[in-house]
């Protein structure tokens, strides 16, 4: 784990209101695995750090994908090249790819694209066939970048690909399923593929397992920490009805 001051080195738009920001943070870029995250400190800025899944790495560069939903993300999008942020990471437990699966399906809804490029690369490096299924509200909201062997789109308005959610666009057999996206999508996915691995988004404090603020309820009755035992869970293990969606615009002041 590293706590670095990382300069912004690049920024590009990948959907109507989604941007990829690249920060130079070599030690984190070298260690991070798909599904892990960094906790970002902005000064001046809100008191607490903001957690982001690592989207891709490119050499020394750690890429994050975000949309302006509150003070933290708004400030991040105002950064200029060379501006520094604090990056704490890599944090959490990432995806565990099964080399014997043969085929892996990545299912992402909206900003759930976040951990997928890294997952696609790691899976391909293991010789797995990678099918990426990505859904969003409209064609303009779909992420314009993808990685893997095949891509399937889904939009709620049918403006591109299958009309419906990413879930409805998954070709069978899916093989090993990795998913990230809105909680209702993940809850539905858990009913279909309880063994799928899902990256869960929660409100988070420290990111290192101390504050117990990022509680994720399991069907076994216990709470776990998204930052430490997660953010990747077996889909069937999460008590989805007791996990509130992070109210982005609400929880940021």
């Amino acid at each position, binding site marked *: 784990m590293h706590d670095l001051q990382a300069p912004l080195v690049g920024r590009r738009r990948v959907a109507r209101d989604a941007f990829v920001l690249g920060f130079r943070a070599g030690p984190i870029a070298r260690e991070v695995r798909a599904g892990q995250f960094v906790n970002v400190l902005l000064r001046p800025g809100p008191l*607490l750090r903001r957690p982001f899944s690592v989207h891709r790495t490119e050499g020394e560069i750690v890429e994050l994908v975000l949309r302006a939903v509150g003070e933290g993300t708004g400030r991040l999008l105002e950064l200029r090249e060379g501006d520094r942020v604090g990056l704490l990471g890599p944090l959490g437990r990432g995806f565990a790819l099964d080399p014997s699966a043969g085929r892996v399906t990545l299912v992402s809804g909206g900003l759930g694209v976040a951990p997928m490029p890294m997952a696609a690369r790691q899976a391909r490096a293991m010789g797995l066939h990678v099918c990426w299924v990505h859904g969003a509200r409209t064609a303009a909201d779909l992420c314009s970048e993808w990685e893997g062997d095949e891509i399937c789109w889904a939009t709620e308005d049918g403006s591109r690909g299958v009309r419906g959610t990413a879930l409805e666009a998954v070709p069978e057999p899916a093989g090993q399923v990795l998913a990230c996206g809105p909680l209702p999508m993940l809850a539905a996915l858990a009913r279909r593929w309880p063994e799928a691995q899902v990256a869960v988004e929660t409100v*988070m404090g420290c990111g290192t397992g*101390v504050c*117990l603020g990022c*509680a*994720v309820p399991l069907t076994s009755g216990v709470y776990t920490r998204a930052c430490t035992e997660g953010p990747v869970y077996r889909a069937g293990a999460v008590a989805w009805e007791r996990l509130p969606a992070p*109210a982005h615009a609400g929880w940021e*002041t």
Partner: protein
Amino acid sequence: MSDARDGLTPAGPLEVGGVHLATPVMAASGTFGFGTEVPLCDRRALGGMVCKGIFLEPRAGAPPPRIVETPSGMLNAIGLQGPGVETVIREYAPLWATWPFPVLVNLNGETVEEYAELAARLDGVAGVSGLEVNISCPNVERGGMLFGQDPDLAAAVTAAVRVRTRLPVWVKLTPAAGDISAVARACEEAGADALCAVNTFVGMALDVRTGQPRLGFRTGGLSGPAIRPLAVYLAHRVAQAVRIPVIGIGGITRPEDALEFLLAGCRAVQVGTATFVDPNAIGRVVEGLRRRSTPDGAPPGHRLRPA
């Protein structure tokens, strides 16, 4: 030049309320886990730590959302999730016994007898250097009133713990007390070795889109820089009310913040929420205090003039 009565302490080792601290800056309960969770913290700077608050039995904790950021602060309602005392004794105390800084256990109960029982179980356990009694808990025998809101109840808890242990007993005061000076004196008379001032302030935040509380538990404890002036004031009042040492807590982020509490009459401080943001917050506070220390170890010369 400078002694305890000045409210100024050097950045080096000192004895406070029966506990030998490596520096005057400690980790506050609930912000340092059981000492194994915080990475990247310079442990040589750590004066001591207070572990996550425990009850006799394990607790599942409160439903999420458990934290909400507010201006310059955060509200939390974790619900004291954690292992019970047996796990602490079996799994953590043996580790603590090997560490170079003291560990105090934060005690919680729903009845006076629960606090007393916890104190008895921890008495003589190697690795436990003291007890910090959290009297911000609701008393289920008195309709949920916080023990720390009432001098008699606070004294009853303190006395019950005192007679069941040979360990130093610190009492962590709640800002919800009507007259915190009276509660402080009651705890002192009941045998407390030191007082910690203060715990979080109860607060609430609502989501205006849903009309619902933003915390699963509805209310929570406010911490962070937002409470610092309130906490400095209360710590100062407590320090004026008692002869036993006071440990200041509330929104300390920078070395200057710690100095404020020391000037207000505290012998040591605890850093809490800042550790969530910067895992080495305590290291930076201690480093700053060292830079401000004169060669004889005391911070430079001003002292708080009597009002």
